[in-house]
């Protein structure tokens, strides 16, 4: 795998700490252009920490992160966003007192092309017609599913090259989960590379091309999504099959 192959994001032996707690103990992950890559693993395995390391909220103490050939190991969150990585963070983290519309605008904070922003706003409303109906509503009063849509839409407003989603299906009814996953595939088809963290391993492996299984801060398994679905251990632990 070289950059000529469309290698977009590359984590090499990343160690990230919270104080003295080592949450990531040497993680290496690749994401190629156009892919959907999924990170699965038990609670506390370090999935969210991996995303936070990438977008600059928690800098790794060791190891390196490269995006499109540039080193972003110690980059600040805003420069990471500017380079084209957007995130829908764990727990959505909308701005609760801003309207849906304002939240979406915040997603485009780093951009100055008004016309493009308007186009993307239309696109988000096309993906989530429900958001359009609720445009002026305060985000904090949206239902869980609507909030998730808003969070994904907000991340899309950055027109990212790489979209990172942290548990987009969390707490949603099955019908909503399906809707969200359809949207993820749709967004990917429109040309956005996706790094997807999921508890719902079955669905995640269905839409992803490759997957990584994290275990207490290390990569336990890395393979094609299809192969992981067949993997005995994964089936037992994460897919709830015997």
């Amino acid at each position, binding site marked *: 795998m070289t950059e000529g192959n469309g290698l977009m994001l590359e984590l090499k032996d990343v160690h990230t700490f*919270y104080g003295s707690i080592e949450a990531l103990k040497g993680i290496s992950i690749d994401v190629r252009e156009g892919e959907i890559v999924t990170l699965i693993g038990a609670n506390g395995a370090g999935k969210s920490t991996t995303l*936070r390391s990438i*977008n*600059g*909220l*928690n800098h790794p103490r060791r190891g390196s992160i490269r995006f499109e050939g540039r080193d972003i190991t110690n980059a*600040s*969150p*805003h420069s990471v*966003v*500017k380079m084209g990585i957007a*995130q829908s*963070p764990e*727990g959505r*983290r*909308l*701005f*609760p*007192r*801003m309207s849906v519309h*304002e939240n979406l*605008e*915040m*997603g485009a*904070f*780093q951009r100055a092309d008004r016309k493009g922003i308007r186009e993307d706003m239309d696109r988000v409303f096309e993906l989530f017609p429900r958001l359009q109906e609720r445009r002026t509503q*305060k985000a*904090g*009063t949206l239902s869980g599913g609507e909030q998730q849509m808003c969070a994904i839409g*907000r991340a899309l407003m*950055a027109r990212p090259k790489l979209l990172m989603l942290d548990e987009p299906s969390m707490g949603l009814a099955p019908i909503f989960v399906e809707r969200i996953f359809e949207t993820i595939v749709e967004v990917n088809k429109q040309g956005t590379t996706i790094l997807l963290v999921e508890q719902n391993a079955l669905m995640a492996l269905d839409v992803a091309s490759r997957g990584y299984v994290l275990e207490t801060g290390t990569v336990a398994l890395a393979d094609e999504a299809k192969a992981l679905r067949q993997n005995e251990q994964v089936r037992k632990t994460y897919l709830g099959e015997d």
Partner: protein
Amino acid sequence: MAIRRRTGFLDPVRERVEVLERRVLGDDAGPVARRTFNRGLSAVIVGFLGMLILAPLYGFSVAAILAWLVFVVLYVPPWEVIPRVGRFVRPLLALSLAATYPFYALNMFTIPIFGAFPDVATGVKMLVFAMMAIGLNIVVGYAGLLDLGYVAFYAIGSYTVAWFASIQFAHQNIHFWPAGVPSSLPGIHISIWLLLALAGILTAIVGVIIGLPTLRLRGDYLAIVTLGFGEIMPQVARNGDDFFGTGFNLTNGPNGITPIDSPGFGSFTFLAGHGSFFTPDRLFFWTAILLVLFTVFCSLRLRDSRLGRAWIAIREDETAAAAMGVPLMRTKTWAYAAGAFFGGIAGGYYASFKSATFPGDFFFNISVLILCMVILGGMGNIWGVMVGALFLEYLDSEGLANTGAWLNSNLGLNIDVPKYEFGIFGLILVVVMLFRPQGLIPSARRKAEFEVGVHDEPLYNATHG
């Protein structure tokens, strides 16, 4: 921190008003009609109480009736429904009332308990503090950064003007467009107008210098550091007559710097005035109004800018803001600089008005006073903050003394009421927080914060930007 409004004991009144409202307006009146009705009702009640209780005690006053009429015109009609010009009606009316105040200040009636209307010189002080409060509101109300040392910026502004428009540095003899200063006078004498700009800029730079290391801190820590900074300032001023033991007299120590040049043009100075129309107080008063207008204008523009949106985002959720690409440090530092800028100008202007600056003017209690103004009026809302500032500064300089005199003479007491100023302000604040935690005139956004009941989640560390 979901704070609910506690208005339980007013509910029966409210219900009755609603019944009355429905009887008068019908069941499906629009919100505008209903608000107008409610406001009209309050105006009638206020007028009625005035007639019933105050008039027999104090006698009928034409001025009071006129004032009530002005209040009705300002408050009751739904001016904002007039397209385009409607939303300017209230501010413009209020502005013209303020601008003409020197002409009728002496003809006003006596407010029960509070006493006479403030004189024009007090008006200048009130306006200066309004300017400072609006500046602090950028830091506290917009960006949500608790600054307990705002007085430091006021001090820096004051001393900037004092240094460059007095005989403090007597071995120098630099004159640059001062007003009414003979060229033989030693010291540095620069035009006050230029110095106000300089004070603003210098203070903003200091704001940035202080901001860069401290704004990485969150909440409580930031408050403590700013508190320390605010405490250091008057000490530096007090001991600055022998600057770091070098013998260099920077601040003239506890004696302060006085006199300070007055603003003006050429040989015409505010201090001397011109005839009976342009009295010194009036000149200072009108200029203060212009400065407040400038502050309000800038503050509104900032609020509606991209930067303003970023401030609100940081206030709501710092981590999410960072994840959206808001550069935290830079954005917060701008809030600091902008707040400091107006504090500096206000401080400089006030020093020139008083013609003096002393270390004792810059103690911690002034920081608290300005913060109270912001909170009382309604954080984030310029009009609320302005009302809060004007009211508290009025109490500070005249109101409390008047009230004390009234109490003592009517109840046969002998209390020095102004001595308990901060206790009284604390009490006012507690009462307001209990019954109207969003402040007297909250911003639409803040109001939502109290009504929606959504709350902040704990954050992890994001200190970059």
